[in-house]
């Protein structure tokens, strides 16, 4: 079970969190004309990298904040965690 350092609460067990997918996906702006391809990329297409991956976790049984976690998908090593709108190094 992962041990995730919530930037708001500190180290907490994985079972307090829900996984939220790729954190690098950016929603297209509202009312912006975009191609089908761009929209398709946003809604459906995700990379599935082996190695470092920036992902979203939701601290549902804690502070209810969405956080960003930089994790290695093969070793589960967590390098750093960020608040929702913190700049990513």
């Amino acid at each position, binding site marked *: *079970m*992962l*041990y995730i350092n919530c930037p708001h609460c500190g180290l907490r067990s994985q079972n307090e969190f829900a996984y939220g997918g790729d954190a690098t996906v950016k929603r297209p702006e509202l009312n912006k004309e975009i191609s089908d391809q761009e*929209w398709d990329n946003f809604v459906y297409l995700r990379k599935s990298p082996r190695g470092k991956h920036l992902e979203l976790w*939701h601290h549902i049984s804690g502070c209810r904040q969405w956080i960003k976690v930089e994790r290695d998908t093969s070793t589960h090593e967590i390098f750093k965690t960020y608040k929702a709108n913190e700049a990513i190094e």
Partner: protein
Amino acid sequence: MSQDFRLDNVGMVNREKKISFKFNGKKYFGFEGDTIASALIANGVHLVGRSFKYHRPRGFFGVGVDEPYAILQLDRNKERDPNIRATEQEIFEGLEVKSVNCWPSVNFDIGAINNFLKMFFPAGFYYKTFMWPPSFWYKIYEPFIRMAAGFGQASIKHDKERYEHKYEYCDLLITGSGPSGLASAYAAAKNGARVILAEDKPRFGGSLLTSDVNIGNQTGVEWTEKIIAELKSMPNVTVKNRSQVFGYYDHNMLVMSERISDHLPKTQKYLPKQRLWYIRANEVLISSGSIERPLVFGNNDTPGVMLSSAAKEYMKVYGVLVGKKPLIFTNNDSGYETAIEFKKNGVNPIILDTRSNPSSDIITEAKNLNIEIKFSYVVVAAKGYKKVKSADIAKISDDKKELFNIENIKCDCICVSGFWTPSIHLASQSGNKSKFNEKIDAFVPDKSKQQENTIGSANGIFTLEETIKDAFDKGFDVSNKITEKNNKVSVPTVVEKKSTDHDKFWCVPLPKGKSYKRFLDFQNDVAVSDIELALREGFRSIEHVKRYTTLGMATDQGKTSNLNGLQLVSDIENKVVPQVGHTTFRPPYTPVSIGAIVGREVGKHSKPTRKSPMHSWHEKNNAVFVDAGVWLRPRYYKQGNEGLFEASKREAKNVRQNVGVCDVTTLGKIDVKGPDAAEFLNRVYTNAWLKLPVGKARYGVMLREDGIVMDDGTTTRISENHYHMTTTTAQAANVLSHLEYYLQLVWPELNVNVVSTTEQWAGAAIAGPNSRKLLMKLFPDLDVSNEGLPFMGYKEADLFGVPAKIYRISFSGELAYEINVESDNGYFMWEKIMEVGQEFQIQPYGTEALSTLRIEMGHVAGSELDGRTIPYDASLEGLVSKKKDFIGKRSLNRSAFTSTDREKLVGVVPIDKTTSIPEGSYIVKDPKAKLPNPKLGHVSASCWSVEYDNPFSLAIIKDGKNMIGQKLFAMSPLKNKTIPVEIVSSHYVDPEGKRVRS
């Protein structure tokens, strides 16, 4: 039966307390502190089971977790417990165990015919034989294999025992209380670290219990007792026996199973049977020790052949002799310790040492004790079927290929030692790669992957002096990283006699003309010849060889067979062991009972149960409940002999004719607050929200980004910057997460807060033509006229002294209101509604009547919004704004969503007006069409229309709106029904929606 093999005054069992138990129905005696194995051996019993494949007789091979043979089935408090290792299970008064995998008895087992057919049961037998025809699998092969396989039977009854889970955090977890575990625990504890020391066995000390050593001028046992006593007295240390750390998971999470009551006749009150510990440790020291390796020779699975360390432990810990004419077969000094122990207890052993000319203090001691030692000697084969009676022994050439002077000598047990295999399982589970240590012919952990270090013999360190010193250092180092107290204790002096040399010999060649089975894996009956066959057939990868031959796949997971198997493969392939590699170690290290894994989450505790504040009223009034997510909701209120159908019809009819009241507390409620709340809702919902006035509610639909409907509900503007959102019961949690996602990550610039208020409000929906009259009486000071409180209006008022919120919204399609009060006042509100409503013929109605009402109105719910529908499919196009953007809007342009033949919501009525259409039925044009019959759509919800007194269903079918008026068929292959139906509008009752606005 008397305990003929029990020694006087030797061992650690409690001679004061005699315990009786039954094995295969026969009564035996042992002492408190005995395991089943030690007690049976004391009684001279060595035949306890049959092997998996050939049903060969099985005795005892080890003395702990590595035991491959003695697996029994236990009865305790009328509960069955299979897969019990006799070497671990302690006896208690009244214990009953029996042998498994034998019929009719362990002494005479019909399955043993396999032993004589063994030429027909080579490796891969099942793969080769049970191939064709495929139709034979289900009825012939599988039942046959199932009957023949398995060790014991699991109980099919509900397990009444209690199992607990515990979460623990520590600075340092130490897995094993042998010399390295004790030394490191002591060093770390003295340096102020929070330490957990876990020992699998009932007694602490590991090898110190049985080896003839001296630490700090004390015997191993004395030193162990002193350290354990001191550790137990320290507040920063937890010491646990009967506790096996069996799994090493991510981020230094380890799981340990503690057997609290397994050794007791009955689980004590307030204690669980077993406890599973989830331990998050800053640092881990793996001191899991090592397991003695067998030597491979002919018939080496005969009862009476066992590990020499096991024979020693039976003597020193349990005071039990495994035989009175022992043969010790060894390639290292460990066998000598066992021999000396026999000698001390008045038994004359013979040592066969494969080495030609070894020397060490312990060999000298053995010689001085006049123990007969034969160097360059091996056991060729054990003789005897159910117990060793003699052994063929021979001199072996220096190249270990030739046997000379084969002779038969009498013996009643053969104690083997093929040196030691470090238990690297936990280190390996941590992610640690292993490396091969040529000196000890075994794998040891390589670089640490997580915060872990392996110490002692688990790390391939076999001298006590080095072990103790290294363990003291490591205990200090890892604790000092955390505590920084620099409190170092001094390392005691150590005296040990044996050397760590060993002969790289492990398998005795077959003499000419003999074809003895030489076993590697004792539980799965994998012999040298099976591995040879697998390699001849082209299996190369050790992982493939393992799966083809089942080497190491038994419940002992190859603890004794692994390395010998690798040796054999590398010998045949002309490789060295590290080139062959080893198979993956996975948790659990030892079998864990399912009960312990499940813990307390059984029955009603498997999930929480949520009840509304009015629950007890429903109970008192004969409500029959239904699970709605984790909520319990009244499905209907039973009157007299009514069933579900009659009751729900009565309740729904009463709503249409008079007035009904329904508990709607379970609906999700979310407070949306902030200056940008309107803008936020406008983005979340498909319809327009910017102009909703204060005091008004609006129905809204929200989508996922892929255009699929996520949820629907009404949201009311309570004040300028405050909205009260409702969601469906099932989606409440998801919707909150969804809103938080957009507010925190996508549009953080919006100044809005959301919070769940589901549990803060109790809700009652009053619906029916009499509901306004009822409302007038409930709130006499309030203007509840159609003008004063119009459809989708909102008012706050006082309900007999209790503040209440009134929403004029309707799910039933009738004139209806929803009253919310603070949860604590819910019961009061409900009683008042029932009391005042009496004169208007009020009746409570449950979810079944609620469904009926919404279905005949064509209102969609979860069965239509099933994760596949977009708003257009559910006749919700009027709610989709063309002007503004919202979540999921861009997806609605997808060609699949705009195609004309999309399945859309319609109503379905049976032509005969009497046959109910099963939910899930397919709608087809021609019921006799060739299969697969092209399906137009499916029936999503069915009810008995109380308005028209005939069945009515909702369905989602292709090109739905254009199908209205057509005569089709509803087919339910499950119910074997074909019903002619007519497609009608989904708005079956009051299509203009006059009633809700009346």
